[in-house]
């Protein structure tokens, strides 16, 4: 270790160490904590007043629409996670084992691009594509099928969620699959295991941690997204994220929005910890 004694050294070390915690404390942790505090405040005449009442919690938790939104969000995000994981796996498998490294790198680069393009614009494009008289239905009409209602349905919401999450899940799965030792797979083939069985008995267990991490990220993104359910799902019935926006933007009921937000964070933490525990446990067993 380099020497750290002497005045200039200590000043030097602190200069690099403190900017992050100071900034994140002031503008990340404190806002989150303040939100928790705020959930116990009162709103009178459209103004918040410091207090310590559990009224906001009781109110939200006793409302049917809150629980409807809760289970709906959980269900949609869970379903999306399942679909994204299943859809991504063949692609990630192919990227890991069926293309050259250069091709893999370029396709991963292509998959990164969407993260830096406006999600709103893409959702708007889906609105136009999925509309009653949109591109898909017009295409199907020439075949004499349809039209189908896709906009303002759960299907639309899930298309939006997948637009957000699928590239990330493919990337994360590919990263974990391509680290699987090829010689193990060849050994399995050599021992007469079929391709499908090799995937099930060799590749899946080895890549399990990566697959679970991909699924967790997918769940977090879908669970928190408000754009897909709003513009493709028709916002009714609302998800938790839409509930937060409606509660915040109309009516100034920030404390109640905070209750929804905290519920969401607790749910996400629970899911994430459960998933990490699952990934970890399966690793130990081996």
């Amino acid at each position, binding site marked *: 270790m*380099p020497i*750290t004694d002497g005045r*200039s050294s200590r000043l030097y*070390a602190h200069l*690099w*160490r403190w*900017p*992050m*915690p100071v*900034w*994140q*404390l002031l*503008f*990340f942790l*404190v*806002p*989150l904590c*303040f*939100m928790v505090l*705020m959930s116990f405040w009162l709103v009178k005449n459209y103004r918040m007043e410091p207090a310590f009442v559990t009224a906001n919690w009781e109110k939200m938790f006793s409302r049917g629409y809150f629980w409807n939104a809760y289970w709906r969000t959980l269900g949609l995000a869970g379903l999306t996670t399942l679909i994204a994981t299943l859809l991504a796996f*063949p*692609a990630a*498998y192919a990227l890991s084992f*069926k*293309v050259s490294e250069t091709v893999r790198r370029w*396709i991963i680069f*292509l998959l*990164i*691009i969407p993260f*830096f*393009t*406006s*999600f*709103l*614009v*893409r959702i*708007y*494009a889906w*609105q*136009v*594509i999925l*509309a009653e008289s*949109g*591109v898909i239905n*017009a295409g199907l009409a020439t075949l004499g099928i349809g039209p189908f209602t896709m906009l303002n349905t759960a299907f639309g919401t899930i298309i939006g969620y997948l*637009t957000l999450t*699928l590239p990330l899940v*493919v990337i994360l799965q590919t990263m974990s699959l391509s680290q699987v030792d090829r010689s193990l797979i060849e050994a399995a083939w050599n021992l007469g295991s079929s*391709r499908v069985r090799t995937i099930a008995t060799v590749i899946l267990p080895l890549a399990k941690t990566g697959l679970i991490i991909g699924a967790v990220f997918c769940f977090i993104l879908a669970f*928190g*997204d*408000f*754009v897909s359910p709003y513009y493709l799902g028709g916002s009714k019935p609302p998800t938790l*994220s839409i509930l*937060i*926006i409606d509660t915040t933007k109309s009516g100034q009921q*920030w404390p109640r929005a*905070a209750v929804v*937000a905290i519920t969401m964070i607790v749910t*996400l933490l629970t899911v994430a910890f459960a998933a990490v525990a699952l990934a970890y446990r399966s690793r130990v067993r081996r």
Partner: protein
Amino acid sequence: MHNKTTGRFSTWILRAYIALVLVFVFSPLLASMVFSFNSDRFPSLPLGEFTTHWYKAVWNNDAVPEALRNSVIVSLCSAVLGTFIGFCTAYTDYRYQFRGKALYLGLALLPPTIPLVIMGLAMLAWLSRAGLSGTLFAIIIAHTVMCAPFAMALIRLRLQQIDPNLEAAAWNLGASEWRTMRSVIIPFTRPSIIAALCLTAAVSFDEFAVAWFVSGLNKTVPVVILEILQGNVDPQINAIGTFVFIISITLVVITQLIVMKQNKGHRHGR
């Protein structure tokens, strides 16, 4: 043993599947570009005539120049601040061991896991207490929180490649710690610093949720898009989107080129 023909067949099926995934990912992007030059208000098949009408509409939209100015200011400031904070964190992680370091790194990398709506609400509530909500500062502050982890990750990856004795070698040759930072660490990490600036600028330039919560009247481009979207179907969005896409993609391509060159140089050095 495996039949060679079925093996090759399944390989091609799987490759076609990758293409299908790419089609799903890129179809909304391509569609919005195509629609931006399409005369129909409700584009469908067959496409209408070619037009630059929507671009002209954007050009004449009073909200856009203002929003663009705001977006540029916000993304430049958050990129610089976020990259500075990310650099400090990455260097601290690389160089120092201390108690509570896991917690320290946890704090540094946590923000991207919090849903944007929640981040927006928390920021709005807190910054309006501080009297900052509705200002560009509010957006810059929030975006810096969200950008710093990305900058930290990029710069830390670069520091991973440094010879652990390189700093000590500079001290040994008479450079003070400050001088070493200037003449060794910064030159070494320069590619990743530039990459981090581009990446964080792109992140900030596209971010709409938190910006929408805290911006008030000082809207950025994505917030304007969001508000147009809330109104009615309006192909102006496609025109703005295509324009924003070109800016973002330029930043991302620069980042990617830098990262690839840096990796190549590293492999070369082995």
